[in-house]
C-alpha cells in the first residue's frame, strides 16, 4: 500500500509504477484522507469559544438519529450551538474548502499555470461587486424569504466569467492567454467599482469588508442547499475528466492530436469549476489561497496525476478550511476573525516553502 508515493524516487521497478497507475495507490490514500476529514470535522464541532465537553457534543450529534435521545439533560443552548451553529459551519466550511480546492486544481490544469486559482477569470471580483451593490443599496437583505446578497454574488460571479469568456473568444477557440487577460481586465473593473461603492457608502464599509474577507459566522443548514446543487455535479464532471486533464498538460496541439476535443473540454471544465466556485463564494465570501495552495500541496505530496490530485485536493481543502474556520472563531474570542485573513497568513509561508523546493519540478 503506497500512502506517500511518487514524491522521492530512487530507481524503483517499473512494475511498481504499473500498479500505481492502475489506481491502486489512490484508494488507501483517499480512505485515510476521508478519515482525517471526519476526525477534523468532529474536532471542530467539539471546540469553540463556548466550552462544551466532547462527550456532550457526541451525545448531541447522536441524538439526531431517530429513536436516540441522549441529550435531554443538556442545556438547550448547548444543543443549539452544536447542531444549529457549529455543525453547519463545519460542514459548509468543508464543502467550500473542497470546492475551492478542486476548482483551483482544474483552473491550474486548464491554464497549465501554477499560479492559477479559481478567481483568475473574474469569479471573486464579480461576486464582490454583486454583494457590495446589494449591501450598500437601500434594499433589505431578505426579500420575500430570499437572501439577496448571496444571490447577487452568484449572479455577479457568473456574469464576470461569462464576459471574460465572450471577450476572449476568437472564432471557435478561446486561447488561454487571452482568457486570462480578459479575466484580469474584468476583475479590475469589478474591483474598482466595488471600491467606489464602498467609499461612497462608507457607513457600510465594515459590513462590506467583512463579507469580502470571507467567513462562516452566519452559517446555517439552509445555506447547504446554496452550495450542494452546484458543487456536486461540478465535482462529478471534473473528477470524470481526470485522465483527460493529464493529457491537457501537454500543450493543446498535442492533446488535440491525441484525440481530445480541447475547446469543448476547456469550456466544460472551466464552466463547471466556475459555477461551483461562484456558489461557494456566494455563501462564504472571498476566501483566498485555498484554491491556490491546496493543489500544490497535493502535488508535492503525491505527484501531478489529476486522477488523484482532484479527489485528494477536495479532501485536503476541506480539512484545511475547517481548521482555518476553527481558528477564526476561537483565536480572538469573543470576536470573529474573517477566515480569509487566516488563510492568507498560511499562504505566504507556503509560497516561500514552494520556492525552496522548486528545484524538484512539481508542475
Amino acid at each position, binding site marked *: 500500500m503506497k500512502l506517500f508515493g511518487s514524491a522521492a524516487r530512487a530507481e524503483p521497478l517499473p512494475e511498481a509504477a504499473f500498479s500505481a497507475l492502475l489506481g491502486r495507490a489512490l484508494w488507501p490514500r483517499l480512505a485515510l484522507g476521508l478519515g482525517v476529514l471526519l476526525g477534523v470535522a468532529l474536532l471542530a464541532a467539539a471546540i469553540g*469559544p463556548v466550552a462544551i465537553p466532547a462527550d456532550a457534543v457526541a451525545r448531541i450529534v447522536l441524538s439526531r438519529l431517530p429513536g436516540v435521545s441522549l441529550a435531554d439533560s443538556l442545556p438547550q443552548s448547548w444543543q443549539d*450551538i452544536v447542531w444549529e451553529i457549529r455543525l453547519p459551519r463545519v460542514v459548509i466550511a468543508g464543502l467550500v474548502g473542497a470546492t475551492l480546492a478542486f476548482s483551483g486544481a482544474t483552473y491550474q490544469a486548464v491554464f497549465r499555470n501554477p499560479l492559477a486559482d479559481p478567481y483568475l477569470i473574474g469569479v471573486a471580483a464579480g461576486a464582490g461587486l454583486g454583494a457590495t451593490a446589494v449591501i450598500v443599496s437601500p434594499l433589505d437583505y431578505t426579500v420575500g424569504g430570499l437572501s439577496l446578497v448571496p444571490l447577487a454574488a452568484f449572479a455577479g460571479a457568473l456574469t464576470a466569467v461569462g464576459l471574460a469568456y465572450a471577450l476572449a473568444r476568437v472564432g471557435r477557440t478561446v486561447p488561454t492567454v487571452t482568457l486570462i487577460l480578459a479575466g484580469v481586465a474584468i476583475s479590475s473593473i469589478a474591483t474598482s467599482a466595488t471600491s467606489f461603492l464602498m467609499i461612497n457608502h462608507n457607513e457600510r464599509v465594515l459590513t462590506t469588508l467583512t463579507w469580502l474577507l470571507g467567513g462562516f459566522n452566519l452559517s446555517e443548514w439552509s445555506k447547504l442547499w446554496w452550495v450542494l446543487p452546484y458543487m456536486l455535479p461540478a465535482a462529478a464532471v471534473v473528477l470524470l475528466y481526470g485522465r483527460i486533464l493529464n493529457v491537457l498538460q501537454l500543450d493543446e496541439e498535442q492533446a488535440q492530436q491525441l484525440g481530445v476535443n480541447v475547446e469543448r473540454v476547456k469550456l466544460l471544465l472551466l464552466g463547471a469549476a466556475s459555477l461551483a466556485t461562484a456558489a461557494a463564494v456566494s455563501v462564504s465570501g472571498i476566501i483566498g489561497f485555498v484554491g491556490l495552495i491546496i493543489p500544490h500541496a497535493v502535488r508535492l505530496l503525491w505527484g501531478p496525476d489529476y486522477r488523484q490530485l482532484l479527489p485528494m485536493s477536495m479532501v485536503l481543502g476541506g480539512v484545511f478550511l475547517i481548521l482555518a474556520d476553527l481558528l477564526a472563531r476561537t483565536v480572538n474570542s469573543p470576536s470573529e476573525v474573517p477566515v480569509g485573513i487566516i488563510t492568507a497568513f498560511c499562504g505566504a509561508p507556503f509560497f516561500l516553502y514552494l520556492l525552496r523546493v522548486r528545484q524538484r519540478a512539481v508542475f
Partner: protein
Amino acid sequence: MTSLVQRGLLLLALVVALAAAVACEDGGGEPTPEASPTVLAAVAVPYPLAIVDTVGREVTIEAQPQRIASLSPAATEILFAIGAGDQVIAVDMFSNYPQEATSRQQLDAYEPNLEAIAGVEPDLVLLFYDPGELAASLGRLGITTAVLGSVEETPESVEAVFDQIRLLGQVTDHMQEAEELVADMQDGVDAIEEALADVEQGPRVFHEVDATLYTAAPDSFVGGLYKILKAQNIAAGADQPFPQLTQEVIIERDPEVIILADGAYGESPDTVKARPGWGSISAVRNDRIFVIDPDIVSRPGPRCVDALEALAGFLYPQRFE
C-alpha cells in the same frame, strides 16, 4: 474632553481678565443678575475666544461665527438645539436632524473636498473626524477649524456630550441656551439614575449594529449609555469598540434583551426569532427584542438622552412606562 474644557475655561478667564483690565474704562457689558458659577456668563464680549480642540490644536475664534460648516452630525444637532441654527450654512451628508438642517448646503465628511469646503466660505469649520491633515490644510487657507472628537475618540460618556454642548455654546455665543439644554438633559439622566438607584445589575443586553453580528462593546458611545443603565453588555471582553461576535458566543451569553440598530436593513424581531439556533435565547423566548433608531444611539448629541430613555424603557419596562 474634560481637559479641553478646563483649558478653554482657563484661557478664557485669562483673556477676559486682560480684556477687562484693558477696557475697564468702557464699562464692560450688561451686568448679569444671577451669580453664575462660571466666569463665562459674566462676559458680554466673549470674542476673541481661544479654545483647544480634541486633537490638541489651539483654535482662536475671532468673532461670533456666522457661517459655520458643520461636518459632524452631532455638532449639527447641538448647534440647532442651542439656537445657533441660523449661523450654520453648510452641513455634511449625514446631518439629517433636525429637518431644518437638511436645507443647508451639503458637504462630504468622510471624503472631504477641500475646494468644496472653501467654496462655501465658512468662518468656522467643525469636524468630528480629521481624515489626514484636513484641519491643517483648511488652516493654511485661513479658515478656522476645530476638531470635536475623532472616530477613535467619540465622547464616551454623556458628561462629555455636555462639555461639547457648552463648548459650542461658547463658540457661538449661545451660552445660555447651551446651559439650559445641558440642564434639561442632566435632569433626564438624573431621573433615570434615580429610578435605577436600587438596581445592582441590569439585564444582559445584546446591541446589534448589523446583521453580520457587529455589536457595540462597553467602550463605545452606546456602550457608555448601557453602562449608565447598569446593563450587562454581552460584548464585554472584546478588544475594540465594535467587534463582530461569533454566533455561539451570543447564544451562550444568553442576552435577556436584544436591541436592533439595523432595522433600516430589514432586521426585525421576527427575523431575529427565525434565526436557527437562537430559539433558546432569553430575549427570543420572552419576546424582548426592540428596534431603535441608530442615529440617536450613536450620535453624541442632544438626542442621546432620548436614546437613554428609550433604552431604559426597553430594559426596565416596569420602571419606565
